[in-house]
């Protein structure tokens, strides 16, 4: 049985690896997407002398076939060597590492906030379907999914930082507590949309389970409402976990806008700066890193089914 589960896990991992490989090709092709000469794009605004161009061509193997160039880039990328940034002239790898902390902290905080608020709210609304509390929270969640993070962020800034002065306006702060304090508004702005999303999907999942026959049967044989709710939640956990996995991708889209709005030096604002500057090596590296995180999350969700859904486990074993 354990061997079969392991085989299943390996198969899923292999599929993820194949997907990542395809994505890396796509990401590498980004270099060719920008209008103009590739070598010039890689030089950026630096002095364009024939010597510099020739050096860039040699450095990036630009005279070799596309696939050879790709291989050269990929073999370096997997070791963490993403080349040099056009804008700063420094190594891309360390630049990324430098910016990761802020993003991880903001995104992590936002994820935590949205799950801790969203899941209970979604359960509460599902159980009280059609009652006033349900209507209010559902309406609020529609506003939440409709509101772009940066608009929410600016309004929060205006009200809580400029107006009431409870929170700092920009920056990251110093020391752990101060840094956390600086991240509260960005995380809340990010969690607003995310949490609304969590409410919606939790509510839908719980309602779908509440309508099942096994709930009627559980009540019909006298199980307590608490037990019935636990039964429902255990079943609803499967779609909820799937959607939480999908949200990681959503988080990365949102974090760019939030970091720009709050002037946080994270991966998101690095992405904005690099895109505007056409700093292609950095953009490639960032995109690949995001793809990696998203795919690995999807893999983790897939594997978590083995733990939470016995039907998937059985199918994995049977194959």
């Amino acid at each position: 049985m354990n061997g079969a589960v392991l085989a299943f896990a390996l198969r899923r991992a292999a599929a993820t690896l194949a997907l990542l490989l395809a994505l890396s090709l796509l990401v590498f092709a980004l270099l060719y997407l920008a209008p103009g000469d590739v070598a010039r794009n890689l030089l950026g605004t630096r002095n364009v002398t024939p010597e510099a161009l020739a050096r860039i061509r040699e450095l990036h193997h630009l005279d070799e076939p596309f696939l050879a160039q790709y291989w050269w880039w990929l073999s370096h990328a997997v070791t963490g060597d993403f080349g040099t940034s056009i804008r700063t002239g420094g190594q891309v790898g360390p630049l990324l590492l430098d910016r990761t902390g802020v993003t991880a902290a903001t995104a992590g905080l936002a994820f935590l906030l949205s799950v801790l608020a969203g899941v209970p709210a979604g359960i509460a609304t599902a159980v009280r379907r059609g009652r006033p509390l349900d209507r209010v929270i559902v309406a609020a969640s529609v506003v939440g999914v409709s509101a772009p993070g940066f608009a929410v962020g600016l309004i929060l800034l205006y009200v809580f930082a400029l107006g009431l002065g409870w929170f700092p306006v920009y920056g990251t702060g110093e020391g752990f507590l101060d840094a956390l304090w600086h991240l509260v508004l960005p995380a809340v702005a990010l969690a607003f949309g995310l949490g609304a999303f969590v409410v919606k999907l939790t509510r839908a999942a719980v309602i779908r389970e509440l309508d099942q026959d096994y709930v009627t049967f559980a009540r019909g044989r006298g199980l307590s409402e608490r037990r019935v709710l636990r039964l429902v939640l255990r079943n609803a956990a499967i779609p909820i976990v799937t959607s939480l996995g999908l949200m990681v991708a959503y988080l990365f889209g949102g974090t760019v806008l939030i970091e720009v709005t709050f002037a946080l030096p994270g991966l998101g604002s690095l992405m904005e700066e690099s895109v505007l500057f056409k700093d292609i090596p950095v953009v490639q590296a960032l995109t690949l890193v995001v793809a990696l995180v998203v795919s690995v999350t999807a893999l983790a969700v897939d594997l978590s089914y083995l733990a939470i859904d016995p039907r998937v486990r059985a199918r994995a074993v049977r194959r």
Partner: protein
Amino acid sequence: MTEGPVTEGPVTEGPVTPLLDARDVRVTSAAGVLVAGIDLTVAPGETVAIVGESGSGKSMTARALTGLLPEGVHATGRLELSGQAYDLAARTPWQRIRGSQIALLLQDPFTSLSPVHRCGEQIGWALPRAGRAAGVARLLAEVGLPSEVAGRYPFQLSGGMRQRVAIAAALAAGPGLLIADEPTTALDVTTQHEVLELVAGLQRARRMGLILITHDLRLARARADRIMVMYAGRLVEEGPAAEVMDRPAHPYTARLAACDPPVTHRLPALPTIPGSVPRPYAVSDACAFADRCDLAVEACRTAEPVLAEVAHRPGNSGHRAACVRPSDVRPVAAPLLAVPPAAAVPPEAGLSPALLTVRGLTKRFPGSAAPALDGVDLEVAAGEAVAVVGESGSGKTTLARCVVGLERADGGSVEFGGGATGPRRVQYVFQDPYSALNPGLTVGASLAEALKAAGRPRSEVSGLLDLVGLPAAYARRRPRALSGGERQRVAIARALAPGAEVLVCDEPVSALDVSVQAQVLNLLSNLRRDLGLTLLFITHDLAVARQVADRVYVMHRGRVVETGPVGGVLGAPAHEYTQRLLASVPAATRAE
């Protein structure tokens, strides 16, 4: 337990305190009344069957008695359980009632258990924490399952085993009364029999009351002490099972019993009830059955008849009916024919050339261990009606789908004799009338399209409708404005549109109520006679096979285990499996 009328129920003499005594149970939704005031008592050890077709309110009654009505549906009335009275309209303390006093068992064992919990857990929740494992093992043993089932998940068990687990779970808190809502309808015939036997045994052992909700009169007769017949939200007749079945005092009961086809012999035409069941709230100040009743008089249409003792009958034992002319009601006797009707004379197999020949058909679906078809041979002569009977998983539907090309067989051949094999010479009638028609198209548009595909003019639509007994005006209707039986008629008309010679019918009546089933079966047999149609009829129901077919093939696990003239195979089955199938049929009309 033997078949036939059950006599070992409680003796209803003396002041036996009923287990459950419900008065004036009324169920209402936003649309109107769904159940119009029903009284119901159950004594310890007694089985009461509530019988009715879809829309009769039988399931709503069961839900009302357990406080499990769907949202927006409300009940009123008085409920007395072991001497304690409750008002159904007020906040009833269901937590104290359900489980320990009443438990509700549902129809579909595939959906009534949580898919992600082990069976042992699900049974054990109602047991005290201490000694839970032992309690679960004891309950499993009681329902005839080995104790290792406790560690299994429901999806690892067969339907019958799941229903046993569900029964164990329902009994865990020791209810005095079990309400079983169509507990065996989703199961195969042989499993049905086993589960019903199990329930009867448990009931005796625990002296438990049982309310059996069913659409099947024959099953009610075989299993119940008393029968209550519901129609359009009303109780139309109640009384001892044998009394109600043998001497019905309401025309509906009499007609309904007659619609149920016998498995022992073929009727020239099945008795039917014209029209369809009205919605409960659409009837007021009249007998709900008046429009379909040939005994109806003026009084039936001006006031709703009250439930009254059927006085003149001997051995009066609570037989009551809501009819103004109970003494004029007679059991509907279907004429018995010594010789089968003309159209049904089977052409001797082998003499007349086969129209459809299936040779060595094999099919295995990816991912399944056992083959769906394991070398099936079958022949159908022109004008012949052949039934393929079997339980779920026998491969009968796969066979039918291979014949019309919906499924591609792995090996073997399907051939049509007698000239060119046009693709439209064989058509298909599906089981589910509700998805058989495109919901977006009118009946006329669906039929016209089928005609056009075969190069025939649109003007033939009304002729097709007439052929299946529907008025031409139905061409403008959409499927949602039709009843199940009417949809199935349209589906048959569409299959006939290209001038099909062979009609493959896949359980065409199993989703229909008995009275409607009889209408559709009669239609098919008329079409066969008038158009010289050839039928390949797939069914799980031996009685239906008996009525429509000349010859029968019995399938089991992808193989044909027995074949021959229907009278021979069903009258004197040779194969052990066929014998088992026959023995499982509830035997109200078989015990001659």
